[in-house]
């Protein structure tokens, strides 16, 4: 588990306390890989799903009258004596929306820190890929979310790190409430990186549906602490919710571990299915897993980035 203190002052050799320089350098060379290329009309470096004018060849098609003859591939015409039109991909700007859950449940076992680190990693990949990166931190349900307005390019990196390194307070904001707050302020298509433990009593499906409707692919990362992955409880205990303060009496907790793991795995499957059905991605990690392993092993192997 990382021992990074996000709020500690940076040294001169560091750009951020969240990421090591080596990882930062490697991340700056990597790009996010969305599933369905939801882009905006604004021209950019990101290839749009539809055809357009760019240097990136896409396909051929038969020439039909009215087509621009500039796009006829004359080499093919001379070889086959039939005109074919070259099609090119459209490179557009893609929005990268990073949503960080900073509720009280994320205050346990460095889950929030890991979320900040991942947000920094995704943000670096976004701004270095000239995408428009915006970050939203959702904690308290009564107040609004703090956010980083969309930014792009290397010049925005410092501002992004400063935003992420702010100390975040807890709250009881649920997942769907957080999505509501984000979508109330965000416009643009792209991907939504959701960094949360998703341990909320809210309607999970609704949040994913709203993201899908807004043209955002849900890249969900569930961050759980070791005590949530393998609780060490036994006997008769009274569990107290860190967010709502509600209590729940558990008898013979040791015997319920099997049921708990079943429920946890079922919930993970439910989250993964929700993401997959909406062209998204899902990954559940432990806060104790090293960041390097998460970034350059799990996320890379699962095609989250390239």
């Amino acid at each position, binding site marked *: 588990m990382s021992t990074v203190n996000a709020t500690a002052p940076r040294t001169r050799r560091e750009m951020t306390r969240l990421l090591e320089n080596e990882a930062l350098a490697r991340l700056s060379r990597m790009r996010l890989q969305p599933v369905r290329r939801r882009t905006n009309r604004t021209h950019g470096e990101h290839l749009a799903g539809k055809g357009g004018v760019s240097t990136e060849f896409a396909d051929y098609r038969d020439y039909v009258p009215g087509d621009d003859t500039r796009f006829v591939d004359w080499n093919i015409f001379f070889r086959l004596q039939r005109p074919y039109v070259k099609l090119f991909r459209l490179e557009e700007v893609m929005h990268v929306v990073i949503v960080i859950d900073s509720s009280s449940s994320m205050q346990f076992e460095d889950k929030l820190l890991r979320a900040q680190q991942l947000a920094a990693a995704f943000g670096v990949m976004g701004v270095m890929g000239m995408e428009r990166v915006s970050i939203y931190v959702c904690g308290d349900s009564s107040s609004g979310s703090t956010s980083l307005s969309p930014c792009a390019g290397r010049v925005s990196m410092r501002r992004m790190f400063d935003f992420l390194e702010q100390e975040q307070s807890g709250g009881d904001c649920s997942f769907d409430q957080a999505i509501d707050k984000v979508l109330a302020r965000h416009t643009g298509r792209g991907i939504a990186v959701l960094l949360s433990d998703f341990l909320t009593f809210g309607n999970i499906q609704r949040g994913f549906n709203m993201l899908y409707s807004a043209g955002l692919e849900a890249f969900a990362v569930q961050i759980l602490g070791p005590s*949530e992955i393998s609780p060490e409880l036994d006997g008769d205990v009274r569990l107290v919710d860190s967010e*709502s303060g509600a209590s729940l009496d558990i008898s013979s907790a040791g015997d319920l571990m099997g049921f708990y793991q079943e429920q946890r795995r079922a919930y993970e499957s439910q989250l993964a299915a929700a993401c997959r059905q909406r062209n998204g991605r899902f990954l559940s990690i432990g806060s104790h897993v090293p960041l390097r392993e998460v970034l350059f092993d799990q996320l890379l192997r699962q095609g989250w980035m390239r």
Partner: protein
Amino acid sequence: MSWPGFLSWQYAWLALLAVPLIVFYFLKLRRPKVRIPSLMLWAQVIHDQRVNSPFQRFKRNLLLLLQLLLLMALVLAAMQLFWPLQEERGRYLTVLIDTSASMAARDSVSGRTRIELAKQSIGKLIDDLMADQKISLIAVTSTAQRLTDFTDNKRALRDALTQVRVQDVPSSLDDALRMTQAMSRSVRIDSVLLYTDGNLPERVDFELPFEVNYQQMGKAEPNLGITAFTARRAGAKAWQVFVGIDASAGTVSGAKVQLRQEGKVIAEDYTSVKGDASPRVMFTIDAESAINLEAALIPDGTDALDSDNVAYLQLPLPRPLRIYCPPEMEAFRHALGQLPDVEVHPSDGVNDTSGKYDLWIGNTQFPPDGLVAPVRLVVGVVPPPLEKIIQLTEGSAEVIDWHRSSPLLQYVQLTDVITTDQVVQAAGTADTDVEQLGFEILVHGRTGPLLVREVGQTYHAFHLLFHPERSTLVYRVGFPILVKNLVRAAQQTASLSEIGASQTGVLACHGLEPTTSYRVELPGGTAASAVTGSDGRLLGVAAPVVGAYTVSRNGEQVRTASASLLSAMETQLVAREELLFRETAVTAAVDTVAQDRPFWTKFAWCAFALLLLEWLYFHRRVDRATEAPSSRSSTRRTVKQTAVKMTGIFLAVLLANGLAGRIAIANDVAPDGKMERHGLRAEYDLTGSRQREDAPLLATWKVNWEKEYLLQGNFRIEFFKDRIKYQVYESDQYALTQGDRVVRMLLPATSGPQFWIRHWMHVVFVGNDREYDLGDFDVALPSDRHKCGLCRIASSANTIGASIEDEIARQMRFESFLEQDTTRQAASWIPNTVVTPWEFQDMPLSPFYYTPFDIVFLGSAAFRSASAKQVDILDQWVQAGGRLCLCLHDFCRSIRTPWRVNCWRQQGPNWSLPSKVGHFHLRIPPPGLHAEGSVASDLLS
């Protein structure tokens, strides 16, 4: 296969406590709080149907399991689980312990004495005593002594068992069995346990009404012992001393016999013993004065018994026999003059009719005033008791038959003896009438008895109903032989010709001042006081051990008496495998006594262990699961919680102990279960009750009684609580005291909550215009349901308040004989008493039938109509420890009984009753309440 049983099924309902236990466990379970990020997953977990299944809720719930086990252990303890090892379990068990001399013999296997083995077995029996069983311990020697009443108080039983000591006396079962039979009148006794070595008389003349379980102790080592120690006059200043030796079966050994005087060996011999032979060693010693001899046996090999290796004998001062024979009885004086070592008085014209004589021969009904003689021959006079049925008339009479085996008539030929005094027996009377009047006929004449012997007196008296000088007897050869036999009998009585060592049992000591109190020091160091009879014989001093007894008066030693075992049966260590009773025989049991094994104490301890385990587990969970308390407040909270839990555990243990204790006690108090309604009760034993110095004592006179008294009169009883006197009673009550302690007392009716309050009372007895302070006692009155409660205040046994019916039915049984007013009076003294009148003629003829009764009330009329035999039986019972309450009118004073002749002596308005048998220091008729009053006595002496 036997199944465990329960003594108290009614406590099975306690198992229902498991339901609230489980409910409260889950409702009020103290759960450590654990703060987690979210309950979302756990909420889904507990909504799983499988989680909420009953089995899953109980699975591995160790705390609840411990609590259920604890409850189960308590329930089983309350139900008093036991493992039956007996086919039929009797509630009342009598244990007879042989404490005769042979029980001190060492067992050849274990090396321990038989009495130790018996006490070990009985100790196990007491340990396994069931709650509804009661044991009475009876020590068996030549007589019987009840050590405890029927009780389930193990402490009292163990104390009594500890105090059991071997007495150097032979054993006999008769008295013990009769005592048991008497006890069976009040309770049902099915079986009697007899622990003995089998050294008993072969045949016991007793018809067994119950089963006897004969537990025989082990075989003893070889034994040699002295069984006879006698001396015979061998000249004017010499004695021949004989020492008889016996041995146990199969013993072949030698032994040295020493004769010691004042600790110095004056003679010594060696003898050998083989099998059944009983050698006798003879010594001849010169004795010019009275000497104390001690015979000691020193066996060569092992010897099982020590008490029979020594014997004591006091040789009297040699002197001639003193005979008083009036001068007019010339035939007797002539015959006496021919005998050696005889001193006939009066002589030389001196007629001294006072003083001590060994033999008195006279022709008057009674000897002259001041003349004391242990052997008497009265001639020509009919004794007063026979005057109603025998008369002397003129005529001739002849001898028909005579008692030839009588010592007086040995070798006496009375054939053809004719007398001119005719003894005529009244018509319609028979010889049995003479015998009922206390006389044995030695010579039968044609018309009536000619020579009778008085029976039952402290002296030997012969009555020659005709005058020999008016018969042909003086001319017969038989006459000097008759006189010779008479002199021999007198010499034997005076120990001048032959003397033998006294056996243990009752101390034999003669020749003391008549009706004088003496102090007797026993060999063990204990002392007893005793009074001599009119013949100078010391009465009623037990001699349970072999040795020399010192008799002193006013601090000055006046005599040394001794007691020796001298029992061939005890020395031979006879071990009978079979005891023959009337119409039945009892064989020694092969197996030891199988006693039901109770488990409730084990379950109680198990419950306590579970309680501790549960407590430890409870704390272990809390310490681990809760977040570590770092602040001081957390530490205080933990300490506070621990204190609260410890208090709870303490209260639970108290409750468990109280419950168990009540079970054990309640059966002792109320076999019918009535006392169950009263719940927990306090046990109080005021034997050593404290005198509260801070109490506002009102009495001015402290009682200083030594023995036991029955007080009936005005009592003032003041009840206190927290030093506040809240009730005072002044009424006519009844109380039994031992020393200055009230043992039993009828408490007046009270009501209200004080029955549940442990308070104390101050008792003052009012009498003789004085107030006698009986002390302060903690009491807990038993019940408000009764008008009166008999409170047994102090005793060595369980002393628990009981209802009057239960207590009287169990503890005290009042019997009244014949007279209705006595019955009513007894009933008025003891309220709620059910008195069963007995006809006096139905009074038992054995003192042991009185054993179950603590007090016998006797009325005037009943007492007046009592026969000599009945009075004698009562006397024996009183001497054996029974208590007697006499309710007598003034006209009864003339009744002659040996133990109440001095009882009534009016001094002023009150009665002062010094008695020779009791301690009638107190006789206080309650003014205006009972005109007759009562007599209080302790007749334990």
